[in-house]
């Protein structure tokens, strides 16, 4: 009976007895979910255009953030460093298309996937060679990102809202909205969807595959930069940051690999879910459940909706 009480009753008693803390948990889940959405978005963009899971997305986050910080440390003013980093992400997208993807048009998706694994390790080695392994502080204040926090006192308790977290949420919303409009309402967006469906068919109607791939890898690079800035400001910019990108996997399983709204909803489901479970139920399993709980949620979704919440249902006719 104790077990049933601890699972079914006690967590809700805790939520009711400390509502301020419950609000804090919800806010943390919302911020984490937004950031997970941002990471997942980078994967979705490339998957939509090439049908490949970009294994290198995590290191692109690190690479973008290190370029920004590295340029600043080399004496370049913060805003100019940001512009130059955007330029570097464009150069990376162009090089990836030119050296890697162009040679693999119409190859099996697994070949493209393997190519992104190769790209991942190349960027790790190249990044470590250029920037070194030392963690670097993100230039949050220099970029005008807010610091400090505001403390609210609801229900006689306290809720601390970090200004940086608010900025992260706002930046994620702006970026997601802009990308959603770009890919749904513009000609390039429609071309991108055509490329995702069939490379050869898209080529036959005059869509430049090369151009689309550069655009989409560049967009994924911008998302990586935004993710690197926000996550780097929360902790540090180091190569350990690439591991955070793995959080996108369960988000993608829930949201579907091809849906921008799916990435957002999936991120929020994981963000809220893991925080609530870790805080109110995690103790029953010895804490530290956050690392795997996201995958449990994803597996449950897989049972009922293998294509994810917003993914396209693939029907193969025999």
């Amino acid at each position, binding site marked *: 009976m104790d077990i049933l009480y601890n699972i079914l009753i006690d967590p809700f008693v805790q939520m009711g007895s400390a509502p301020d803390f419950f609000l804090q948990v919800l806010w943390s889940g919302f911020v984490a979910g937004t950031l997970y959405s941002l990471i997942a978005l980078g994967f979705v963009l490339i998957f939509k255009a090439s049908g490949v899971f970009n294994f290198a997305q995590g290191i692109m986050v690190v690479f973008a953030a290190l370029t920004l910080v590295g340029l600043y440390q080399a004496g370049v003013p913060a805003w100019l460093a940001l512009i130059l980093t955007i330029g570097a992400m464009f150069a990376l997208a162009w090089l990836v298309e030119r050296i890697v993807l162009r040679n693999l048009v119409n190859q099996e998706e697994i070949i493209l996937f393997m190519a992104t694994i190769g790209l991942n390790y190349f960027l790790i080695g190249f990044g470590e060679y250029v920037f070194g392994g030392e963690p670097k502080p993100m230039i949050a204040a220099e970029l005008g990102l807010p610091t400090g926090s505001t403390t609210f006192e609801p229900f006689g308790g306290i809720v601390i809202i970090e200004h940086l977290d608010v900025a992260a949420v706002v930046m994620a919303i702006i970026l997601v909205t802009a990308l959603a409009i770009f890919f749904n309402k513009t000609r390039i967006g429609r071309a991108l969807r055509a490329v995702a469906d069939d490379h050869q068919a898209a080529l036959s109607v005059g869509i430049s595959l090369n151009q689309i791939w550069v655009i989409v890898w560049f967009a994924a690079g911008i998302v990586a930069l935004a993710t690197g800035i926000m996550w780097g400001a929360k902790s540090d910019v*180091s190569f350990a940051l690439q591991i955070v990108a793995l959080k996108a996997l369960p988000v993608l399983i829930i949201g579907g690999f091809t849906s921008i709204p799916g990435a957002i909803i999936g991120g929020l489901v994981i963000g809220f879910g893991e925080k609530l479970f870790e805080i109110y139920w995690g103790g029953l399993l010895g804490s530290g459940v*956050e*690392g795997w709980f996201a995958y449990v949620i994803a597996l449950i979704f897989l049972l009922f909706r293998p294509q994810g919440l917003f993914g396209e249902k693939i029907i193969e006719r025999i």
Partner: protein
Amino acid sequence: MKKLLMTGVAFATLAGATFTTAPVALAEDTMFVPSLSYRTGPFASGGTPLANGFADYFNMLNARDGGIGGVKIVVEECETGYNAQKGVECYESTKGKGALVYNPYSTGITLQLIPKAPVDKIPVLSMGYGLSAAAIGEKFPWTFTYPTSYWSQLSSILKYIDANGGLKGKKVGFIYLDVGYGKEPIPLLEQLAKDQGFEVAKFPVGVKEMQNQGSQWLNVRKERPDYMIMWGWGAMNATAVKEAAKIKYPLDQFIGNWWAGAHADLRSVGEAGKGYKAANFSGVGTDFPALQDVIKHVVDKGGSQVASKDLVGDVLYNRGLFNSVLIAEGIRAAQEKTGKKVITGADLRDGFELFDLSEARLKELGLEGFTAPIKGSCKDHEGAGSVFIQQWDGKDWVKISDPIAPDTAVVRPLLEAAAEKYLSDKPEWKTQTCS
């Protein structure tokens, strides 16, 4: 053109792969010390300064004194990436070159090498890390944890807390990297909690969550521990201190172990980390004649891999340097005992049980006040070394306590029991008898 480019890339890759493991031509009058380093990967922030300090001290001895006892030391790095499997590969690929000792800089790698040491007759020096039970010299003749073990260190930290606010009836939070290293002191912590009447709340941080500790610190806020102790490494440390500051946890009640108190950890946190404390057993800064010699003979002559001269004297740089000091002293003791100039791993094992790093000897070495004295012995492979507590003032680490000796009376029997347990399923294990 494409072929040319691909050939170039292939050569560049090959060059990169061999950069850290370049074969070393060993002359007869040299001794070989492999350095299992990690300048890459998620823990490179700690691995890089450790490897720099480690190599620079030996290079200084080579340049200033012509080596040790007239024999130059050859240091060869092998990149492990803090990965146990790669660590074992490095061990296997370098042991045939006459390796004198292995310093794995990873508890995971140490655990893999402990059973290999007696077979290959190459000692393992896991300086202040690894398997705590290896401190029992009778049971682990080939492994050393000088100057102290994780368990002894934990007892020193708890002694500090007890003397500065008391432990009885309090709640101690323990946040740790959820790998072998982080879990190592938990049995002792739980035992001491029972014995000394305090409560423990554990907060594991998975490697994937190192930079994403929001949940752990929400749990800290929920549990409201009176003190927090951290067994962190790499990117985990800075994130933990930032998160602690974010939930307004009093940082002067937050104490890291000696792998959670480096400049690399707190430099990026800056003023926000003011008040955070950490244990340490090696001096900070360059205000030691030996460090000045390193700068003069190695760094200023471009012989160091350190990115900037300002990084010489950092906590982890000096920790790596101290590791080399211990080896050098072991080599000297072995040379004296055997009368040989070029010694073997087995000789060095004996040297590790004979050396005496007294205050007078530390002064001779140009390291007066750098660490508490350590004396090698057959029985005690941890040296019962003390730790001191340092505090981050927003810009630098400041030493705030005298050396704190471990609670040997409590820890030693527990270490002996742990050693017995380790050997219980290893009937072939060779122990030694100490007089």
